[in-house]
């Protein structure tokens, strides 16, 4: 199971806990499973079948550029963080 780290502002979904184990062979599946655990959380993460503008997912230390189709490993670590702009 992948380990999901929830950002501070989404922890009200998880009663304050910041680390959740969730299944998913890719990010899309993981988010759907997260939604099953915490109804409503998907709206905070996904818009128009993509990660919400301004949001990024860091998977195993790297910010994914593939987004929802990014494949996850059994022990992947997933963080949802604000996307960082600028140069």
């Amino acid at each position, binding site marked *: 199971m992948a380990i999901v*780290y929830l*950002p*501070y*502002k*989404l922890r*009200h979904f998880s009663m304050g806990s910041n680390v959740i184990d969730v299944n998913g062979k890719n990010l899309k599946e993981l988010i759907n499973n997260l939604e099953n655990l915490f109804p409503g959380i998907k709206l*905070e993460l996904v818009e128009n079948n*993509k990660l*919400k*503008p*301004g949001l990024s997912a*860091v998977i*195993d*230390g*790297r*910010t*994914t*550029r593939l987004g929802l189709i990014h494949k996850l490993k059994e022990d992947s*670590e997933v*963080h949802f*963080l*604000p*996307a*960082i*702009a*600028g*140069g």
Partner: protein
Amino acid sequence: MVSTSDKKEYKVIGTRPIRHDGYDKVTGRAQYGADIKLPGLVLGAVLRSPHAHAIIKNIDTSEAEKIPGVLAVMTSDDLPRLDDVQRASSEESGSEKHLSENVLAYKKVMYKGHAVAALAAIDQNTAEEAIKKIKVDYEILEPVINVDQAMHKDAPIILEDFEADHLGKKVLNTNVALHERYDFGDVEKGFSNSDFVLEKEVNMQTVHQGYIEPHNATAIWDEENRVKIWTSTQGSFVVRDSVSKVLGLDVSRVRVTPMEIGGGFGGKIPIYLEPLAAILSKKSRRPVKLVMTRTDVFEATGPAPGGKVKVKLGVDSSGKMLAAKAVIKLEAGGFPEAFIEAASKCVFSCYDIPSTRIDGYDVIVNKPSSAPYRAPGSPQVAFAIETLVDEICSEKGWNPLEFRIKNVARKGTRTALGPLYTRIGLEECLKAAKKSDHWKSKLDDNLSPGKKRGRGIASGYWFNIGFKSHVNLALNTDGTVALTEGSTDIGGTRASISMQAAEVLGIPAEDVRPTVVDTDSIGYTDVTGGSRTCYATGYAAYLASQKLIQEIEEKAALKWDIDVEEVIYENGIIKSKSDSELKMTLKEFADDSPGGPITANASVDLEEAGGGFGVHIADVEIDESTGKTDVVRYTAIQDCGKAIHPSYVEGQLQGGATQGIGWALNEEYYMSRDGIMENSSYLDYRNAYFLRPSDD
């Protein structure tokens, strides 16, 4: 520059060829944005707000329109009103509404210098005289010019309709556009377990990127509602996307040709003049050029956010960090985006700290809407944390370099934002600093009477983005390779990208001929910024070169009528594995290749490159009587990865350090109580001129 050992031998990479665009730049031929000449070109001027915060009650352009020679006048009525939706672009954030309203004020001005109206006329002086005839009726509001004022409970609200996000909650009537929090571990417990806790707040002044070339834009709006734009920008595609949003056009109707760019440092990512030039062209049916004055550049573009950063550190008696807290309040300017996410990512980036909490506040103030500047957010927080670390070391009698090594972040260290570091090079930088001549040298050599010296050391971090790039290659019939790409070249990237292609192709760097082309001529390419260009566009060049070799081998096989597996390409020579008679140079082949021209292209969308760290050492000499401070020795140790063109890597370090010295010593926006920048000239802004050695 000292290079660490390389496992791989390179022929081109690591050498110092003359950059491809250099000849045009040393002869004055290079065409920057303001240099463009087009048939029928007319010039324009922009009316800017004299007030820092005011409601626009009425704009009367009638007098200006009557002036002979005035061809078109525009206000925000000429722009479509956009929704407050987040832009999806990977490099530019903020809402479409704010993008448009920063380009031209709508109903309200947010800072002195905010554009209010624009016009085009037959010549510059007519435009400048006519613009004064536009009458604007303002209701002046109390300005808010720093984070303390803005966050005060009675502060005037600058963006009245804006829905702010405070830890996920929607909030109205606040100047704090965003409050984010990142926390890991139990920070309070960390502090209570600490033997020593120290706290510090620094006040960062607002500074400007200070590029020598003022912003400019030239546009033609044609009868088919297609807009051609020529501009000096760090990202032609960002300009295309932003301008199409502001003008309400499909992206394919906007073609942006990036001109040579006279410096950017992040400040030439946003758009300012382009939509105005486009509308003025539409109205005047002439090509229109707009160029900012230096004062406009200071008052209406950039700057890097100022603000307040408070940091608190807890350490145990052995000098191990146990807990850290940061409160980062940065000035976004008149519209949101002060890079607090980046600042939060950077503040404790150099250390391995088990418990951390970071609160970031994106604060709206009546200053120009801030723009990226050399790792946006990072210098502000680095100054705070590195000063605090030094103070702790000084108080405890610890060696500041050893203390940093003891607490260093490594591969596998959990960062304050959560993710684990992949392979990084901070520890190596610190150890290189320890071994450097500078660190080992005596501080007071050649000290003049009445002077005192001090030595400081600091670490810093930037995360180096990847993103999208595209490169086209075409084998010229003389055996050279034409390389086209979309990354605007600020400091030698044409050379470093070409060198990566040349390395793969086994030909001299000079035989790759790079051109930066317009947005209709290449695939989407993200901005030149975030330390991505050499990496991402270089990666596309690397992939495209491999494909070009494949193409060469396939067509050579066709030419010789042999199996493609039989063909070897090596260093510009094509030969057969088995038949020594079959051999030709790239030039011989290129002149007569079967099946059409030999081309290849590649595109990438890369993840970040792991982040770059630096450790800098500075010796300063202070005149005890006047406080005059000179930097007498400076060493930058930087984890650069492999230096493609070492001269330009050195140049980046030297230039960046000089800007940092300017920021640390002299540069600032000196604001009046009315929110007017009083030093909007190079003379009084005091950026670093020649650092003159004190001995001569």
